[in-house]
Every structure is written in structure tokens, then in C-alpha cells.
């Protein structure tokens, strides 16, 4: 469109240039590889489409944010046991179907690599570079005895349901994965 100056003051087109960004909020409840891939495909695509994306990780979804290395963590004997069995970290995520003691998941990872689909680690880094906010749910962290030092760097502070609802209220797209 032509930028012909008219009687209109300059403010009008300037205002049009920077409309408020649309928001997208995802609840990532699941900690399985396939569901994590779906969540990150949607998050990175939303960010690529100019949206402000927030991912709220809760329950099993917290496993996605855990470091691959280091101790399993947890306060007290039972939580330590549980976190050891539920170790998490992007590299340990399993398929929701056809895990088959690791064979199915390994095969799927190989297929993804052959087709140049990013790994979850790569997806997280990409999303962070794009400014996607990743927030852990404070209740899940508390209940499961997960402390902040078990999470990878660059993620947001722990938050509660009110934070999610406030984000979701302002969002055009909200999904529970």
C-alpha cells in the first residue's frame, strides 16, 4: 500500500505499526516425548507468527524442564525415591505409546533425527531464543519436592494457577497438552 501522506497526523500510521502482540498460553501437563514435541511445535510456531507465548508446566510436564544431568533430587526418602523413578530431563522422555522398553522411543528419535525434527533439548533452546516463557507450577514442585536447581537455566519463576488464568484470559489461543 502507498505511504501517501494525507491530512492525517503522523500518529495514526505509527500506531498501526506496533499493535499489541497476541498471546498464546499452553498448559503442559504431560511428560511424554510425543506430547512434548506437539507442545513445542505449537509454541515455536506461535512465536514465529509474532505471538507472545507462555508455557505453564505442571505435574509430569515438569520432567521436560529438568536437567538431563545431576541428581534426581527431592526432599525426604519417599520423594527422593519417586524423583529417581520419575527422573525426567528431555533425553529421558518416553513415547506415550510404543515405548517398548525403550526400543520404540529410540526408533522414533532416530526417525525424527533423519527427518531433521529438533530434539526436545533443541526445541527448548529454540523456544528460549524466541522469547517463549516457560513457567513451572509451584504446587506440583512443592508436592513432588522439586526444587529450582533441578531445572535447566533460563526458565521463569514458579507460578500458580492464578498466573495461568490471567495469561489465558488475555490469550487468543489456550491449550492443555
Amino acid at each position: 500500500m502507498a505511504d501517501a501522506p494525507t491530512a492525517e497526523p503522523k500518529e495514526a500510521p505509527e500506531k498501526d505499526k506496533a499493535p499489541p502482540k497476541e498471546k498464546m498460553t499452553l498448559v503442559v501437563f504431560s511428560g511424554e516425548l510425543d506430547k512434548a514435541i506437539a507442545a513445542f511445535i505449537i509454541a515455536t510456531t506461535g512465536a514465529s507468527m509474532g505471538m507472545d507465548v507462555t508455557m505453564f508446566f505442571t505435574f509430569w510436564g515438569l520432567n521436560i524442564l529438568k536437567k538431563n544431568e545431576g541428581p534426581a533430587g527431592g526432599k525426604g526418602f519417599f520423594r527422593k525415591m519417586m524423583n529417581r523413578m520419575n527422573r525426567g530431563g528431555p533425553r529421558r522422555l518416553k513415547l506415550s505409546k510404543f515405548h517398548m522398553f525403550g526400543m520404540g522411543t529410540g526408533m522414533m528419535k532416530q526417525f525424527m533425527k533423519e527427518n531433521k525434527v529438533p530434539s526436545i533439548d533443541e526445541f527448548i533452546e529454540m523456544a528460549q531464543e524466541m522469547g517463549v516463557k516457560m513457567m513451572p507450577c509451584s504446587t506440583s514442585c512443592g508436592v513432588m519436592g522439586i526444587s529450582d536447581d533441578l531445572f535447566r537455566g533460563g526458565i521463569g519463576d514458579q507460578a500458580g494457577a492464578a498466573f495461568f488464568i490471567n495469561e489465558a484470559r488475555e490469550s487468543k489461543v489456550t491449550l492443555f497438552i
Partner: protein
Amino acid sequence: MQADETLDCMGLYCPMPIVKTAQKIKQLQKGQVLEIVADDPGIKQDIPAWSKTTGNEYLGLEEADGEIKIYVRKTQD
């Protein structure tokens, strides 16, 4: 169609062509045309949708032997 820049997305699946398009378009000047070369058929739906959301102009596509060339004009800063 004449393009100012070309982006090679051959062999890439969703979301990578869109992620790369969003990165690449930042390097273009307003009014310039970006050509995206891809083989994932999803791109034929995705680039028009991306253009509509971001406010850039989808110009059309050419397809031959499984190679899709798709054109977008940068109309946003």
C-alpha cells in the same frame, strides 16, 4: 517469480520452515520478496496462514517435481 532472497527448507518438516521464515524475513527490507523452497506439503497451508497472522503478503506458489516454491512479500517492520 522474482525474489530478493531465497530460503532453502528442503527436507524440513513443520515447524522448521515457519521458524526459519520468521527469522529470515527479519533480514529483508519492507517491500522485498522472499522465496521459500520446501518439500513438506504442509507449507502450502502454513505460509498463507503465517502471512495472514503476521500481516505479510502471500504472493503465491509454484510446484514442480515435489519442490514447492512459495513467495511472500514483507509488508511489516
